[in-house]
């Protein structure tokens, strides 16, 4: 399976995750919830590795990256939670977040990884930013808060 197909599949899984997150009630502690989610996920993976005979040892570089990965995901959740708690409106903050995310990723891909770019791909990225902005705009009269974690 190529990366394009896998990315589409990932997007469907991620959408399910976002929708599932939206069902979390305000009376739930988001940090405790995520602690249990990640705890359960890690236990499942440990069991999978044990039964598959996969060694759980990790080199120093990989261990450092795994630590950084865990901390960065937590920082991402923390940033989004406090962004909304500090009064960010979904209509403004989410388009800003998504457009910035695409632009930064595109720049990093071109600069850091020297990924090839042609005018067609570049046009696709620019159009994607405009599409994200337009899709995130709220229709008039929609007063629902589409807050997501």
């Amino acid at each position, binding site marked *: 399976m190529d*990366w394009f197909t896998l*990315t589409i599949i*990932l*997007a469907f899984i991620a*959408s399910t*995750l976002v929708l*599932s997150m939206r*069902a*979390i009630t305000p*009376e*739930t502690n*988001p940090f405790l*919830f995520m*602690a249990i989610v*990640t705890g359960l*996920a*890690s236990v499942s*993976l440990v069991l999978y590795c044990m039964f598959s005979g*996969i060694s*759980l040892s*990790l080199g120093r570089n*990989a*261990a450092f990256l*795994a*630590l*950084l*990965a*865990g901390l960065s*995901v937590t*920082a*991402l*959740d*923390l*940033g989004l939670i*406090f*962004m909304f708690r500090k*009064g*960010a409106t979904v209509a403004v903050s989410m388009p800003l*977040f998504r457009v910035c995310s*695409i632009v*930064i*990723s*595109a*720049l990093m*891909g071109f600069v850091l*990884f020297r*990924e090839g770019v042609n005018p*067609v*791909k570049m046009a*696709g*990225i620019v*159009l*994607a930013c405009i*599409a*994200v902005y*337009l899709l*995130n*705009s709220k*229709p008039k009269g*929609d007063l629902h808060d589409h807050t997501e974690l």
Partner: protein
Amino acid sequence: MQLIKDKPWLPFIALALVAQQANMLTYKFGGQVALPYVFLVYSFLTQCLANLALVFVFRNKGFPVALKGKMRFWVLWVALIYLLNESVFIWIYRIGAPYSLSMTMYSLTVLLVMTSFGLAILREKISPKQICGIVFAVISILLIRLG
């Protein structure tokens, strides 16, 4: 400074953006130097401990302290989807997906799926702007695929 005063959430969106990039970079490199499942075990354990630390840090800051009712069961479903999500994410970079295009594709498709869900299931209203957005998104996906 005035901008931060007017929009106190700006530093947090900046934190989220930096954290997201850091996360994707660690997945891109981590998926290449270790087996994805083993890498994810340690990443999840770190997240678990970091979140537990945050429960403790923010215990008196207006966050409730317990999971109640259906949330006790909902957490199992979210854990399953989360595990699936992160596994596919790290796998994409392992098979050599381009950093810039994969992220663009991912963001666009999530938005299209969410918009379709809102329209079809939740019967949400759609504005002409959003219809333009959907058209642009589809063209953009085609351009990235063909480019």
